[in-house]
């Protein structure tokens, strides 16, 4: 006589069933352990965990040593017995970096510039990525190739030309092949404005989808939109929505995780950027940015001590902590979306 299995207990994840000839818990456990692949699994798991731990250590240790160093006084820095925990901890480096090197001014400028660039870049790469992914028009493939080509040409090559372009800005191709070409701005205002030392060049580059690594953002967005099924838009069209309404009301809300990813990238890469700020900001009128914190040693910390060279590195490390601290906080909030956005994007080659 056979009895049907009886459900004994049912929770959300687990159902325990009673049936004839069921082994006791102890017996089942023993069987599980003696199975040959259990041990392999355990070993692989432990090995994997240790490996991940090791790589995490390599990533995190420089930050730990930077933080430890930032509390050291000059004596600790030159003392060979001090490695991580300072003997006489002090907040001097932080204090003077903030007061002498005008941390808050730099912070304000940087947050303004990064925020501006990140918002514009995210939106523009969203637009361009959507256009490239979902519309068949003449030159689509060529434009995508152009996006990649622009990413390949290093901006270091264009540094000089870029500097001169924005120092002598006009809207109609003011190339130096012909010095006397009159541009639109010159026609109306009679002069070509110098817009270096302002945020305008950054915004203009972002608007055109040409700023630092914008090619990558456009690529990510394009691949993301390629994964969005066409039926979604078609049903919106059938319901009478136009292309732009569909984009704003259907597509944009869908792509929020990917947009957060792009925003995080553009914001933080602009935040730590030195190349563009060096190109566009020059002289006494230049806005004071966060990466400028390492340009000079705070007056109160300058010394003739023989260990000054090493101390300087410690100061720079501390400046580094101050620079990335806001980013770390942003990352803590955003990292979940970063991975999710990428994971759900279903990027296809």
């Amino acid at each position: 006589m056979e009895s049907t299995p009886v459900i004994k207990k049912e929770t959300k994840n687990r159902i325990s069933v009673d049936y004839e000839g069921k082994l006791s818990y102890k017996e089942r456990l023993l069987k599980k352990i003696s199975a040959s692949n259990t041990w392999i699994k355990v070993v692989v798991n432990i090995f994997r965990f240790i490996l991940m731990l090791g790589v995490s250590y390599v990533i995190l240790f420089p930050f730990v040593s930077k933080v430890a160093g930032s509390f050291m006084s000059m004596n600790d820095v030159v003392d060979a017995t001090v490695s991580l925990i300072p003997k006489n901890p002090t907040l001097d480096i932080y204090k003077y970096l903030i007061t002498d090197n005008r941390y808050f001014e730099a912070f304000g400028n940087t947050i303004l510039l990064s925020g501006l660039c990140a918002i514009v870049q995210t939106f523009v790469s969203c637009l361009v990525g959507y256009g490239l992914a979902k519309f068949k028009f003449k030159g689509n493939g060529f434009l995508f190739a152009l996006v990649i080509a622009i990413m390949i040409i290093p901006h270091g090559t264009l540094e000089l030309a870029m500097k001169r372009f924005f120092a002598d800005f006009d809207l109609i191709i003011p190339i130096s092949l012909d010095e006397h070409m009159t541009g639109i701005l010159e026609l109306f205002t009679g002069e070509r404005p110098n817009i270096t030392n302002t945020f305008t060049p950054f915004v203009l580059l972002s608007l055109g989808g040409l700023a630092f690594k914008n090619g990558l953002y456009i690529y990510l967005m394009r691949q993301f939109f390629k994964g969005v099924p066409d039926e979604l838009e078609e049903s919106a069209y059938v319901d009478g929505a136009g292309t732009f309404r569909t984009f704003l009301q259907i597509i944009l809300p869908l792509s929020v995780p990917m947009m957060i990813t792009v925003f995080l990238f553009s914001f933080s890469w602009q935040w730590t950027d030195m190349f563009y700020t060096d190109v566009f900001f020059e002289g006494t009128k230049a806005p004071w940015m966060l990466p400028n914190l390492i340009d000079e040693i705070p007056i109160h910390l300058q010394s003739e001590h023989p260990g000054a060279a090493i101390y300087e590195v410690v100061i720079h490390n501390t400046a580094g902590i101050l620079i990335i601290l806001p980013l770390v906080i942003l990352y803590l909030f955003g990292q979940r979306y970063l991975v999710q956005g990428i994971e759900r994007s279903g990027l296809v080659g």
Partner: protein
Amino acid sequence: MSNNNENVVKTSPLDAVKAFFGKILPATSGFFKKLFKPRRSLDATKARAGYFFVLPFILGVVLIYLPIFIDSVWYSFSNFTDIQVEVWDEELGANIIKHITGTTGVGFEHYVTAFEDQTFYQKLLASVQEMLFQVPAIIIFSLFIAVVLNQKMLGRAAFRAIFFIPVIISTGVMESINAEDFMKEEMGSGINDGTQQNSNDIINILDVQNLFASMKVGTELVTYVVGLVNDIYNIINYSGVQMLIFLAGLQSISPSIYEACQIEGATGWETFWKVTFPMISPMILVNAVYTVIDAFTRTTNPAMNYASDYSGTPGVGVAMSWIYFLIVTLIIAIVGAIASSFVFYQRRD
């Protein structure tokens, strides 16, 4: 003489304008009619909308990028006549330096100078070598980590958060601070024990060479692997974006394929090579190209830095970076050709 003058019909400028518009208006109205024609095919409508979406990029390229690009190419073929003049600035109340610049073409002179520059040649070689050295390592490492991070394991969320820290944070100014930090460690290690071993190095090349001396493994391979292990910090830092792209690719593989494999009795190893690897291969191509681009547009790249900080004629520096760009384009083409020979595209409907 005077008769001739009388015979000429006097035309006012207004007439000219009228005539002009009379001629042009029918044509333009036809154009506008065509543009706003009430009935047109869906494809045509969509194509037009597509242009609107990519408009920012097109405008950016035409108005900003193209002038800069042409200028930069022109600079590599020309000499600067850059005169700096001190001009009294009312706003600032001080003298500011104003540049009066012009260019004169010199042909291929700068390129010849660049090729004759021994230092540049060495830096170029070193950069390309380092790039070729790092690219396979970064690809393999990031693929490996992505595969591991894609599995269920203890503390996966935490590891993911840690692994993507470098993408967000270790860029720009942090890269140079980190580089300096490593220099300090090396300074601190003082006199070494004669093996030319840096204190940062994880394994000593001599130890490993002794170990492998009896085996028939080439010294080149040993040197390469030891170099990689000692370069692990950089490799981890540079593989963040690649990891994300791989992770996205892994997520887009349908779980039903893996289920089928499991039912058929395939081992994990087989599943990786027969399923995961082919499915991820488009991402390998993307990442290979991205890694090359990233490596040579990086701010710490020696050849690029040498070119942009070139002390002599500015045109030579620009010429150098163009040479470098052409070489890297060649490398990208080769890498792309190699990678695309084994890329597998799943047919999608």
